[in-house]
């Protein structure tokens, strides 16, 4: 059973080498680490490709069994195939089918989905931002001040609003962000350590 230890050892060595190269300014180590990082980038590219390939067969069963909504699943597969075939066969430069689909359909739909948040942000704020407790009040009052301080009309209402907004951003907001950043960094460092030492293997699956 050599399967378990090999990936764990690879992760360990790769991680430790990155830590060592962090502490070194030795030209030889720098050169090796530059090449090594290039390898990492190349292998990462393969894992992205694997992702694309391994999902290409999803949604088959629905069509085969003619389950409710199966025509939609056919639509999905047709467009997926179009994207994959054109992407691999002719590339992604301007003028390719891939680029046409991306520019005229996918990218606009991404922006459209994203812009729906302008509506959702309004309805969520209206429903949820109630001055129930001191904490909730702090949130909603800050939100209103900052919103006013960022638009030209706010300046017209009270010329101090932009300054107050900037003070909120630079002092209380900044302090909380810093506390969050420090805490989160410790959490991320602990996770990285668990991966290097092979204690975290969720990413490998268990089988």
């Amino acid at each position: 059973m050599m399967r378990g230890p090999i990936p764990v050892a690879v992760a360990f060595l790769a991680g430790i080498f990155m830590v060592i190269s962090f502490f070194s300014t030795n030209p030889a180590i720098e050169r090796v680490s530059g090449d090594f990082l290039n390898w990492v980038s190349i292998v990462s590219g393969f894992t992205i490709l694997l992702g694309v390939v391994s999902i290409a067969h999803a949604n088959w069963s629905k069509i085969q069994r003619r389950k409710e909504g199966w025509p939609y699943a056919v639509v999905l597969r047709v467009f997926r195939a179009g994207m994959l075939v054109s992407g691999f066969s002719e590339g992604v430069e301007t003028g390719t089918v891939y680029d046409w689909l991306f520019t005229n359909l996918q990218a606009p739909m991404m922006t459209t989905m994203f812009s729906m948040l302008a509506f959702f942000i309004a309805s969520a704020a209206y429903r949820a931002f109630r001055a129930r407790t001191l904490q909730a009040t702090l949130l909603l009052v800050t939100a209103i001040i900052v919103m006013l301080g960022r638009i030209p009309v706010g300046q017209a209402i009270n010329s101090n609003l932009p300054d107050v907004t900037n003070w909120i951003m630079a002092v209380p907001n900044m302090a909380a962000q810093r506390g969050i950043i420090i805490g989160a960094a410790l959490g991320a460092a602990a996770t990285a350590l668990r991966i290097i030492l092979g204690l975290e293997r969720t990413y490998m699956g268990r089988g």
Partner: protein
Amino acid sequence: MCGDTTRYAVTAAVIVALLACPAAAQETESPGSLFNTDRVNALLLMLAFCGAVLYFIRSSQRGKEMYIRPLPGLEAVEDGVGRATEMGRTVLFIPGTGDIDQAETFAGLAVLGKIAKITARYDTPLMVPCLYPMPLAAASEVVREAYTDAGKPDAFKPDMVRYMAGESFGFSAAVNGWMMREKPATNIFLGQFHAESLLMAETGNAAGAIQIAGTAQPEQLPFFIAACDYTLIGEELYAASAYLSKEPKYLGAVKAQDIFKITLTVLILAGALFTTFDAGWAETFRSWFEVH
């Protein structure tokens, strides 16, 4: 666990080698030294932190009890599954839209294991959409294992864990459509979320679901707070996953981070006091923490 011992021994050897280097570096003082003496502070911080994490993970493995304060969202998780069971509707669980190397994804998957055990026990329908292929594979295994542990391996259906789309807005469009059609009773969003947080949470609210969310992305938290019934804020997500999964690797890490939060607080306070009262060594003290 001789594997562990070997690993620690190698780590220790590497560290000792690194520590030995500053002396050598000072002698030669060439532009390219083996050890960059500007980074002694980072080295010490790393050693102390890694030491603390390992120590607490070990002592948790040895069975030491680790207290984690109760978090308000946690009971809501079990209640939410109960609600779905009563209504005969689905529990939707999304382990974030981050990839497999993110701490939040690990935390989300750890909680998923716990929830899948409950849905298995009560035969509650479960739906886990995933964005990236690797978390998808990991989530599948977690859910399958939970159903096996609960003694109901046959109740596990592969399409409980489902690929929806390979990009986050396409994913949100698909999840939103699904929510409005299937009307899940409970939505649980635990993991790394970006702009899709409010897209899905606001739609889930419109679909009438009870919603519990948690992420460490501060910029998304105001929106989860607005649209969900319970929200785990920032690191509460990690604490929650440690609390629910009871795994030493998570419990020990939470404990070590806590120790470091106290230590850093004391150091910050000391440094700030030195500066405030203009103590002679204020600058020196602070320079120990500065990076070059």
